[in-house]
């Protein structure tokens, strides 16, 4: 088999932008078998596997791609499944361009191999063709509690269940999946895919208890009293961050978490949803991460005529996945770069205190910036340009500038130490916290980060829990 020497990836079939901005269906449609094999043929099967070095869960990438070349898609899936418990999710939401694909040799001249697209293809192929339930492992008699049901927790629970642990997941919301269900929109990650991943965990014997808030309904100490021998905290990031500028409490100002939760978890985009959401005309989203892109594209689909991303730096520094930025641009999202919001403006009719428009957002005042010296993390700092203030009209402002930690678990758990930002302190190699038998990973430790990093942390902790309990 001679390699496919095309310098570019096989393009991803996608819904046309003019169509997809009116629906919540998935944007990327996935490779066909033919496209997948053709893309796999671009892989040079490097002996040194630089791609796998870039993967937080160390998927044996050349091996699964080799199986695709051989058209043995199920075998390819089994290779991925050895390392990742959520391939259909990761194939869709991982920032491949900064991980596996960043290290790909083909990327030196031309585009890297579309590893993410191939992973997605393999996972979807498996889900469409294989319905044999996983074999339940023999119970090993040990009980482990997993707190939260996002990517870190699902990974940790899955790895432990495969080893025969009796795992119970405690989820605060009425639905499991964490950020995969409340945060990431349907058009980027269909909820039936998340559901499928959760069902496969349940088939392995994982028990999921929704509506249990650890730190409130039960404490970690009570979990131990109830016979759990170890606990993993994967409760995610916490409270949304605000900027502390005037006007953030006006009507029409949302945190991205609230806006996305109303839409994704509570299905506010559906006609007869009982949860309200604002159907705004002009929306300004503050921030440049994936969450900002998700919020902007959601606002567009809810019927906004104009949606802009307001970001203090340039496209060079923007933290969102490349594909999300491209999709957003294709959909007509305006990028207002080097803009720093200084005030959110609201309507106020001094003549009539009962005017129903009083207190609603009318715009956002920004100051223009230029990039200055790099900060301690090497990112160039935006510096305001004096007297450059101007107003962007908006009837809705969504703030997507990250989160701070959630206080519920730390305030109810003696001996669990947190850092200055409120993140749980762990030992990197094991996920072990300062409290005996308690492990943690994901955003609860790092603050808002990526799904794959959370999965990597869940995996590390599962291994350490296994070692602790079997010794």
């Amino acid at each position, binding site marked *: 088999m001679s390699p496919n020497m095309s310098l570019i990836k096989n393009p991803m079939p996608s819904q046309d932008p003019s169509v997809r901005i009116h629906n919540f269906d998935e944007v990327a449609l996935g490779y066909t078998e033919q496209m997948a094999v053709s893309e796999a043929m671009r892989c040079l099967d490097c002996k040194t596997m630089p791609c796998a070095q870039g993967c937080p869960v160390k998927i044996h990438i050349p091996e699964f791609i080799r199986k695709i070349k051989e058209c043995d898609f199920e075998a390819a899936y089994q290779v991925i499944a050895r390392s990742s418990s959520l391939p259909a999710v990761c194939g869709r939401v991982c920032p491949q361009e900064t991980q596996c694909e960043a290290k790909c040799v083909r990327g030196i001249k031309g585009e890297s191999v579309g590893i993410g697209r191939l992973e997605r293809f393999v996972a979807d192929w498996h889900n469409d063709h294989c319905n044999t339930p996983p074999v339940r492992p023999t119970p090993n008699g040990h009980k482990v509690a997993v707190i939260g049901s996002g990517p870190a927790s699902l990974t940790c629970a899955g790895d432990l269940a495969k080893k025969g642990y009796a795992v119970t997941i405690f989820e605060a919301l009425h639905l499991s999946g964490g950020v995969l269900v409340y945060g990431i929109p349907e058009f980027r990650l269909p909820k039936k895919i998340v559901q499928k991943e959760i069902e496969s965990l349940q088939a392995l014997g994982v028990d999921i208890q929704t509506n249990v808030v650890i730190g409130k*309904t039960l404490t970690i100490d009570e979990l131990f009293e109830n016979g759990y021998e170890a606990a993993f905290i994967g409760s995610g990031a916490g*409270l949304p961050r605000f900027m502390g500028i005037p006007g953030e409490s006006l*009507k029409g100002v949302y945190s991205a*978490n609230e806006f996305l939760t109303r839409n994704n*978890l509570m299905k506010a985009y559906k006609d007869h949803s*009982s949860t*309200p959401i604002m159907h705004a005309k002009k929306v300004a989203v503050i921030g440049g991460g994936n969450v900002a892109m998700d919020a902007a594209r959601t606002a567009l689909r809810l019927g906004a005529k104009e949606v802009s991303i307001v970001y203090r730096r340039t496209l060079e520094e923007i933290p969102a996945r490349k594909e999300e930025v491209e999709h957003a641009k294709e959909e007509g999202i305006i990028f207002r770069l080097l803009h720093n919001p200084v005030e959110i403006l609201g309507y106020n009719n001094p003549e009539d205190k009962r005017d129903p428009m*009083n*207190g609603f957002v009318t715009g956002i005042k920004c100051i223009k910036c230029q990039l200055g010296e790099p900060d301690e993390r090497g990112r160039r700092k935006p510096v305001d340009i004096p007297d450059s203030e101007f107003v962007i009209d908006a009837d809705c402002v969504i703030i997507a500038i990250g989160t701070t930690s*959630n206080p519920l678990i730390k305030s109810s758990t003696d001996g669990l130490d947190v850092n200055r930002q409120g993140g749980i302190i762990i030992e990197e190699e094991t996920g072990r916290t300062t409290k005996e038998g308690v492990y943690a990973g994901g955003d609860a430790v790092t603050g808002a980060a990526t799904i794959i990093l959370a999965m990597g942390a869940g995996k590390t902790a599962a291994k350490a829990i296994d070692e602790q309990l079997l010794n």
Partner: protein
Amino acid sequence: MYRIINKKVLNPTVTMMDIEAPLVAAKAQPGQFIILRVDEEGERIPLTIAGYDRQAGTVKIIFQVVGTTTTLLNKKEQGDYIQDFVGPLGKATVLDGLKKVCIVGGGVGCSIALPIAQKLHEMGCIVHSIVGFRSKELLILEDEFRACSDKYTIMTDDGSLGRRGLVTEALKEAIEAGEDYDEVITIGPLVMMKFVVATTKPYNVPTTVSMSPIMIDGTGMCGGCRLTVGGCTRFACVDGPDFNGFEVDFDEAISRGAMYRDFERHSYEETCNLFKKEVE
């Protein structure tokens, strides 16, 4: 699923239910709240806990039928189930060391004030309760309040029961008459709490208010319940629901509470029409 063990209509618009939720009942404290969803498609709404029975494993909720969700909830009968019921959320009301307290409750807010009054009474604290209703028909929990209050004053807007006037009038008189309260705890409509605070502030009587803004998750994730307290952004779900009344920006809270008024009215009318059709 969570079973309705008991349902009682308290007045034409206020209903009481005991919900089987042993984990919540085991932990509940006065001042905390729960979040419920009536059915699969339902929205999440917060309701403050009106009581609990740890032995029976039940939690008492008292709600006013004001919108779609409370209408649907009110259609449920004893023995029926509701979809989700999670809690106890928020911080319990801090009552340590209080010797003499005035509880000021308005309307259905009295149901939340009751467990606080009861707990204070149990602690041996002197409890004066001032409750306000629009009229006689809307009075709730009279016997319960009388049982735990050293003094109990009813105010009605129309004078059909007790004294005619607002709770703030009775409160002001009590303070001026020399009642030296350690604290005033007030729960009711935002406007009422705003004026209770305005009443106590000149006398510098510490005043705690219970806030119930719009919420979704109730666990510190969405940020929808934010309030400005003492000039800072605070979250009712994890920092509250109780706050120092002197520091709360009530006008902002009142404004934010009306964000979805049109949606709510529309949705409520649709639900009512649906039930009307069913009846026909």
